[in-house]
């Protein structure tokens, strides 16, 4: 795999950190938001500019600092990181626009702080995407945890405080208590932490310890919300909806999943997972989470909670895809990172738009809302199609490959899990839409007058909904990137 050295990955990470002083010092709110947009566009452009290189099969690396004798803070852009970075940076642009509509309509306090920490969180996310070794991954993972805390607890009320505590307990507690010792143990045994195509601990770490290490990482990266380390996610829904949308549907949770996948493939390697039978263990952990989360989602009345549990389930799809150890499954999982991101963010944007326009948070109070907010609810419909996996939602492509993956890996039980959870997804999404559009005038809680969310909210959610459909027809560059990842991991076998 050819590698070139370029400062672009570092610039991609840095650009939003550099925007922070600009955001803080600007008095006029429009200019302040302008800096956020500038940073978001700059970030996306830098990342997009690296895509052709990656699609050619070349990787980009950059060492930031040699902090320890054999480990550096180092960035390396490969297809996997590129896929994730493209999704997050593009969606930040859209979310920033949405934030403007949301925060201003609700006259939220401390908006400067909000935009600053958002910028920092995106820096950390791209840092995770481009990490070349476990130390750098850990560094940006922790940075993300601490940068998102003020966002989750933005409202500074009692609820925010207790959710913040849960957030810290699960996310920081697991990263310091589980990931850190695992990482140091691996360093002690192997002397390095660099991710390698086929992993690097095979043969050096005794088999018994492989089990413990895998579990430490799967649960340690609690951002991936593998049960039982998932409760922070519904609790984090107290955050303003743009936070829930980008961070807890796209950035934070995908970082968790990304880290697990990165460690499973880059530290352990598919061969080792297979020979130690950890792939089976991870499959069952993931499938339990998928089904349990989908079942709990059915019982949630708060829309954001339902979406949160849906996210928990969808994340484990991606973990499942990695544990299948099949090329098609891997493509499916990678694609799902992108498809789910677009679909879920649309759903969250809609939930926020509903709250901004009508003040309702609960599904039971959204009977007939389709009459008042047809655009929003139509986009909600499109988003749910994508998450359920029905064409023309983009999620169909990723689920299709996942199903092919289960057949390829001869895991019939997993196929059953995937199909039943898709049914459950439909069961908790479609009734919302049905109730919103098709109800009698007596039942409807809303007048038949169209009164949509503000345009700054409406346009972003329409954009992401259209993207979800667009990706069904033309899933590039994600599909090519996913193929490169899959080939890279499985060709060595």
């Amino acid at each position, binding site marked *: 795999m050819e590698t070139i050295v370029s400062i672009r990955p570092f610039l991609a990470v840095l650009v939003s950190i550099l925007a922070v002083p600009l955001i803080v010092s600007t008095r006029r709110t429009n200019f302040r938001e302008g800096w956020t947009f500038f940073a978001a566009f700059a970030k996306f452009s830098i990342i997009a500019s690296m895509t052709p290189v990656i699609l050619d099969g070349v990787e980009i690396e950059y060492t930031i*600092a040699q902090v*320890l004798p054999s480990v550096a803070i180092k960035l390396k852009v490969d297809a996997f990181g590129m896929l994730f970075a493209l999704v997050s940076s593009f969606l930040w642009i859209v979310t920033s626009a949405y934030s403007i509509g949301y925060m201003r309509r609700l006259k939220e306090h*401390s908006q400067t702080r909000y935009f600053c920490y958002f910028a920092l969180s995106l820096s950390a996310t791209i840092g995770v995407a481009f990490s070349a070794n476990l130390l750098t991954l850990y560094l940006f993972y*922790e940075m993300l945890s601490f940068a998102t805390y003020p966002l989750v607890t933005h409202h500074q009320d009692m609820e925010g405080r207790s959710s913040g505590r849960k957030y810290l307990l699960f996310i920081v507690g697991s990263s310091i*208590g589980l990931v850190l010792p695992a990482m140091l143990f691996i360093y*002690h045994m192997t002397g390095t932490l660099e991710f390698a195509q086929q992993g690097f601990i095979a043969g050096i770490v005794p088999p018994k310890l492989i089990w413990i290490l895998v579990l430490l990482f799967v649960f340690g990266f609690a951002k991936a919300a593998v049960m039982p380390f998932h409760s922070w996610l519904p609790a984090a829904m107290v955050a303003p909806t743009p936070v829930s949308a980008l961070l807890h549907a796209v950035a934070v949770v995908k970082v968790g999943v990304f880290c697990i996948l990165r460690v499973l493939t880059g530290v352990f390697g598919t061969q080792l997972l297979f020979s130690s039978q950890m792939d089976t263990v991870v499959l069952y952990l993931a499938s339990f989470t998928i089904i349990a989360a989908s079942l709990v989602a059915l019982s949630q009345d708060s829309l954001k909670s339902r979406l949160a549990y849906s996210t928990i389930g969808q994340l484990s799809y991606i973990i499942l895809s990695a544990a299948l150890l099949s090329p098609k499954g891997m493509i499916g999982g990678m694609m799902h990172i992108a498809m789910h991101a677009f679909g879920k963010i649309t759903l969250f944007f809609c939930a926020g738009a509903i709250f901004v326009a009508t003040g309702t948070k609960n599904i039971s109070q959204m009977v007939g809302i389709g009459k008042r907010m047809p655009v929003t609810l139509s986009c909600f419909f499109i988003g749910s199609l994508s998450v359920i996996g029905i064409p023309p939602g983009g999620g169909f492509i990723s689920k299709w490959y996942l199903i092919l993956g289960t057949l390829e890996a001869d895991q019939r039980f997993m196929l059953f899990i995937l199909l039943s959870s898709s049914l459950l997804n439909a069961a908790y999404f479609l009734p919302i839409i049905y109730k919103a559009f098709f109800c009698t005038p007596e039942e409807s809680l809303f007048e038949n007058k169209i009164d949509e969310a503000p345009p700054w909210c409406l346009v972003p959610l329409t954009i992401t909904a259209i993207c979800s459909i667009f990706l069904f027809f033309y899933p590039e560059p994600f599909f090519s990137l996913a193929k490169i990842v899959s080939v890279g991991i499985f060709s060595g076998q």
Partner: protein
Amino acid sequence: MSQHFPAFIIVIPLIAAFFIFTAGWLKRTYCFYIAAVALAISLFSSFGLLLQVLQNKVVVYHFGGWSPPWGIAYRVDYLNGIVLVVSAAIAFLNLIATKKSVEKEFIERVGPFYALYVLFVTGTMGIVVTGDAFNLYVLLEIASLTGYALIGMGTEHAALASLNYVFMGTIGASFYLLGIGYLYIATGSLNMFDIASILPNIFQSNVVLFAFVICLTGLFIKMALFPMHTWLPNAYTYSPSPAISLIAPLTTKVMVYVMIRILLSVFTPSFSFKSMAVNTSFVWLAVIAIVVGSILALSQQSLKRMLSYVMIAEIGYMVGGFWLANRAGITGAILHIINDAAMTLCVFLVAGNILYRVPGDSFDNLKGLFRKMPFSMGAFVVGALSIIGVPPTCGFFSKWYLITGGIAAGHYGFVAALLFSSLVNVVLFFRIFEIGYFEPFGDLHISGSMDEEEKTFDDAPLGMLVPLMIVAAGLIVLGIYTDTLVTKVIQFAIPGGIS
């Protein structure tokens, strides 16, 4: 000129102390400036010395030109070279940062305060730079006595707390002296390296063993290792802020340095680390210190008191890391001397800033501090993240070495204690963040206008903020330059025989 750097470090502040005292009677404003100049010269000399050491490995200086074992020799190698620079930097930065605080608290007694301050620095840096075991005792007493006086200058219970410290500290110093006395009886010399060359012949002697034990005990008392830590919380809590941000970062860390020096250079590893049982038991003692310090910190209701218990846990890190008796552990211990001194300075400076603006430091007084003092609290967040051990702050890297050392030695109790302490620190510091961030609870949805936020802004003056920002930035710089520190300096401070 530059060959006298070792002397300058001690002599300049010593002489300056007398001038400051006099200026305290004649013209009080001069006191600060004399102290600043003296400490700046010390800092410059320490830097110069470190550069010399990097070139020549060792710098030896015979006071008055008299050679040992009759004369006093100062000896600077990799180990104390770096500790000297850190101590001088902390003393100097703290002096600048606390100028306003001192003027506010000690208007009449500025002269004595600065004189004591500078004498404390003399003593502390002398301990680090000397190569003579008895000279170390002399300077230890200078540092201790001035420390007691500085602490006693606080309000209400300060005198009693200081008296308690006097008792325990004097016992500790006396034990050390007794140990050195026995070594003198056994070897006939007071020069550390001279003793080191004679000792191997008499390692099996009971006198040497006794000297080892009693020296170590004295040092453990002085560094507040559990269970001899009881003097620390009260002394640190009731001390005036400008004094404590000098004493807290330096005293206990320098005592850890002395322990490392005595055990590695005087007794040498072949004696000190001979018994695995002894090594492991000291690590377990450190584990208890870490766990007890962390748990006791949880029940405190005031900032400085909580921080002093965190300090007690941090001592456990260094002692435990050293007694792991492997390269990673000792590297971690030495690195942590540097890092912990910096982190301690950062958080105690913040405490000083808070006390400058707010009547007290109990948790009730900390409400809404993020809004009121955003810069100080920002620095506090960096310091807290370093104490918790979050990369890229320096605290993470010393934990890195300590934990890998623990894994290498198979001492998983120590590893568990370190992780436990990190998690407890998350709780401790986020509790404070919560109080400063969430309380007082109010309806904040009024409007996002910036005027609202500006009305309550009341951070410490620039003279206090700028040094604090430098220290906070330093925590990250130290972290990123860990590799340079370890490969260029610390690596050579550890004798070759240790793996």
